[in-house]
Every structure is written in C-alpha cells, then in structure tokens.
C-alpha cells in the first residue's frame, strides 16, 4: 500500500504541470479505466433525474472540498460510489444504505490532489448504475500539510458530534443530520522533512450508522476524506431510537457513540 502511494506521489510530481492541460479525451479515458476497475463491464447510465453531484468549480481549500450528492428519487438507491478520478486512490467512499436511510441528500468533504473529474454513481435496487459528473479545479489537497494542532487532534481523536442541519426534509418528518468525526485522516502523503519519511497513514476505513437496530448507512472510506470528516445524511424518522455511530480506522481503533436526536421544531 505504502509503495503504491509513493509511486502515485512520484507520478503526480512529475506530471503536475501537464495535468492542468490534460485534454477532455484524456480525462474521459481515465474515467473509463476507473469505471471498468470499479464496476467491470456493467453500464453506468446517464444519471440525469436520478443523481446530481455538486462541488465548487474552483476549490478554496484543496484539502477540504465540500461536495453534495442529490438523489431526488423516486428510484430506490441502495448504494452511492464517490470517485475523484485523479486522486491516488480514486474511490473515495462507498455508501451502502439500509432501511433507516433517507437517501435524498448526502454531503461530505474531500481532498483533491489535482484538477479532476469527480463521479458519483448511484446503484438502484434493481441493480442499475446511474452516474453524475463534475469537474473540479483544485490541486495539492492530498499532500497539503495536515492539521496545525497535532496535540488537539490527538486529544480529540475519535470524538464525534451529531446535529440536525438544514430545513429541506423537516416538513416531511425526516431528519437531516451532520456527523462530525475528529480524526486527522492521515493519508500517508504528508512528508516529514527531517526524516524524509511520510507521516504514516492512519485513516477512517468504515463508518457505520444505525438507528435502533436498523442500518442507516455503512460507508467504506479511503484516504480522500478530509481530516475531521463530516457527513451530512438523512434518516427516516420511523422511530425515536437513538442513532449509533461506529467508526473503524486503519490503526484498528474503533470509536463508538450514540446520540439522541432532538426532535425538530418542538
């Protein structure tokens, strides 16, 4: 894994200047390779009306690029794949939804290493794939120096917050909530100048959210999530059961916390 990352870094370093000039054809070819690697021979259909991906066209902070995936329905979505084509590990995350999910909106924050196409692909319950695409201008988000306050980061490691956000779904009795997880999400690409070593990767691999006994989502994550990952998602308001979040990282640490969701508008 480390060696693969290093090679990726070297390639990015040498290709950096050329990358901004990469042609649309090159980008599409890369996406086809990536699509094949993730989905094999399955077709990814045009996702218009089923899935949209929003991201700032030019990122303010390449290490914290907010993205929004809208799934207006009515197609029942069972999973969403988020891909940042030019990142060293392009599959940033896979969300598998359970019965307690309200899948209409999903937000998170990612690192972007170079000018890139991003793809969000929805898998519906009948097994079809629908894709949405966005071009983002940002660079250096993977090798950018990480958190300023290492001491605070360690003290806060694994702490979580869950809070209601937005107003979109409140009227329908569903809750949109934001989960914040304090974790440096070291991706192994930040260099220590004295030792010439890379800060060892330590990143969140899995985030499992349940409400009562029912799954909201299970996220398989990778090094592209921003530090202190933030995920905004919907939960179907079928019961007043608490929401439990279980986070597992690559250092084999597990963080678990339960939250009573305050009733909205009461």
């Amino acid at each position, binding site marked *: 894994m480390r060696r693969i990352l290093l090679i990726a870094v070297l390639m990015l370093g040498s290709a950096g200047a050329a990358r901004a000039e990469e042609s649309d054809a090159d980008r599409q070819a890369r996406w086809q390779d990536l699509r094949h690697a993730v989905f094999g021979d399955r077709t990814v259909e045009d996702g218009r009306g089923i899935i949209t991906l929003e991201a*700032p066209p030019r990122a*303010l*902070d390449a290490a*914290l690029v*907010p993205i*929004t995936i809208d799934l207006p329905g009515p197609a029942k979505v069972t999973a969403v794949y988020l891909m940042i084509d030019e990142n060293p590990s392009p599959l940033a995350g896979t969300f598998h939804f359970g019965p307690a999910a309200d899948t209409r909106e999903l*937000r998170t*924050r990612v690192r972007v290493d170079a000018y890139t196409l991003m793809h969000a692909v929805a898998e519906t319950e009948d097994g079809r794939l629908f894709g949405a695409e966005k071009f983002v201008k940002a660079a250096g988000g993977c*090798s*950018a*120096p*990480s958190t*300023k*306050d290492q001491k605070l980061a360690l003290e*806060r490691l694994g702490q979580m*917050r869950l*809070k*209601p*956000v*937005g*107003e979109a779904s409140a009227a329908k009795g569903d809750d949109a909530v*934001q989960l*914040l997880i*304090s974790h440096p999400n070291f991706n192994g690409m*930040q*260099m*220590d*100048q*004295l030792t*010439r070593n890379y800060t060892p990767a330590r990143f969140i691999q899995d985030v499992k959210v349940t409400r009562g006994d029912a799954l909201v989502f299970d996220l398989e994550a990778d090094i592209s999530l921003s530090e*202190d990952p*933030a995920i*905004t998602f919907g939960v179907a308001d079928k019961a007043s059961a608490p929401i439990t979040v279980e986070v597992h990282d690559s250092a084999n640490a597990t963080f678990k916390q339960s939250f009573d969701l305050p009733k909205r508008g009461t």
Partner: protein
Amino acid sequence: MSRRRLAAAVAGVWLVAGSVALAAPLPFPVTEVASGIFVRQGVHQDATAENDDAIANIGFIVGLDAVAVVDPGGSLDDGERLRATVQAKTDRPIRYVVMTHAHPDHIFGGIAFMADHPVFVGHARLAGVLIDRGEYYRKRLVDLLGRDRAGDYEMPTLLVTDTAALDLGGRVLELQAHGAAHTDNDLTILDRQTGTLWAADLLFVDRVPAIDGSLAGWLKELAALKALPATRAVPGHGPPVVPWPAGAADEERYLTVLATEIRALLAKGGDIETAVEQVGLGERGKWQLFDEYNGRNVTAAFKELEWD
C-alpha cells in the same frame, strides 16, 4: 543539515558571492518608523515571479552594538536586498534574525544572512512547523520563482516559549510567543523605549487578514496586544506603521464579523457551503485581495468553530 539543504546553502553562498562580483544587491527604500526601526513595505499581491515574493513588511532594528533583522524576507533576492539595506544604514553587525512565523513570504530570505552567523529566533513551535510544512512551502515557491531565486529559510536556533529579551546595546527587544492566532507560531516584538510594537502578521491593514491558526485565538491575542504600552505598530501587511491601538480596529472588526456570522449560521444548522457564500460579504470592498482570501478564511474558521 541534509545534503539537499547543504547543496542549497552552498548554491546560495555561491550566488551571493557571484552577485557581489557581478552586481551587488541593491538596497531598497525603507521607512524609519521610530528611532532606529526601519520597515520596507511589501506589495499587496500574492507571490509571483515578478514580485520576488517581496510581499510582506520586513525590516530591522538597530541598537548601539548590534542589529536585529525582523523577518528576513520572502526570497533570496528579498533577503539579499534587505541585508544590503542594513549595511547601507549601519555598520553594526546583524546579531539576530527574528522569524515572526513560518509563512514563506517572511522567511525564505533567511539564507541571505548565513554569512552574518546570526542567532535565528522563532516561536517554540516554529521548528516543528517547518519540519511539517517547510518542504511544501519550498516546493511551491520554487515552482513560482525557480530554484535559484526561491531562497531558503534557516531553522531557528533560539526558540521562544513565552517571552525572551534580545539586547542590542542600549535597546532591549521584548519578544512574545503567542497562542494560535494568525498561525500557531506567531511572535511579536515590543520596543518599550520607543513604544513600538512589531506586530507582524497578527496585524493586517488594508490587505485582508489570512487565518491559518485560530479565529477565536486571534481575537484573544489581539485584545492582549492592544493593552501593551505601544503608541505605534508595524503590521505584517499594510503601511510601514500605524497608530496603536487604533490601527487594530479594521482587523478586529473583520475577524469579529466572521466569528459572529459563522456562529449564527451554525446555530441555524447551516453548512460550510452556505458559510462560504454568505459570511463576511459586508467586508468586501474594504480590503485588498478580499475575494482571494475571504472564502478560505471562512472555511478555516467554520471548521474551527463547528467544534465549539
């Protein structure tokens, strides 16, 4: 010193020697803001090949026995010209080179002062930050200026944990290390005898402040600085000198606006995208480079305050 840094140092010395033989670095104009305190005003731009990263206010303080350089400049050329300016103004030796924080526009001229064998002074956290970020800063500056012109920083040899005093002969500079504010390694200098505070990047005037430490921390440190017995201050970006504490008003207002608006948005369940679109817009038109930095500031501040 790694082989690469040694090579860079050798190259730097060679360049200094070479440029002396060909064309000595030209002194630049400085303003004497108080007796013996000289400041060169930086331009309100981001670093480019054209401006040589000479974008920060840098300068020096002259005592009876010795000189303290305060921020050695943003590139090799910036540092060499500062050194030539010191030599044009005084024959006192450069005993100290103070680095007010780790940002490249303030420290990459450090290599120009190697021949003076000064004490390089920085915040206790500066060394660690340079270990983490120095290579990244160097790469970015080399991309802009080229390896020959980018210069390099020196590692601090005197670390300030809380306060320190630098005796220049007949003049003692009081250094103070701050909690996270503009960065997490900010150092300021008080020259009590002239009532001058060298605030460096804890004070931005005209150019929009950039948050790379802590918004809440910056407001706290600023309040403490305002209480110091100083009648004038040297901003890190802005005019060479402003009256103190009146000169802090714009920055304090901007930072307070960000904190107030972000907290109000957080209380409503607002997200970071909305914050970037809305927060601080009343300040547009009051600052240079507002559009380049406000969104980043809001992003950094939102990320900080959402954990309150």
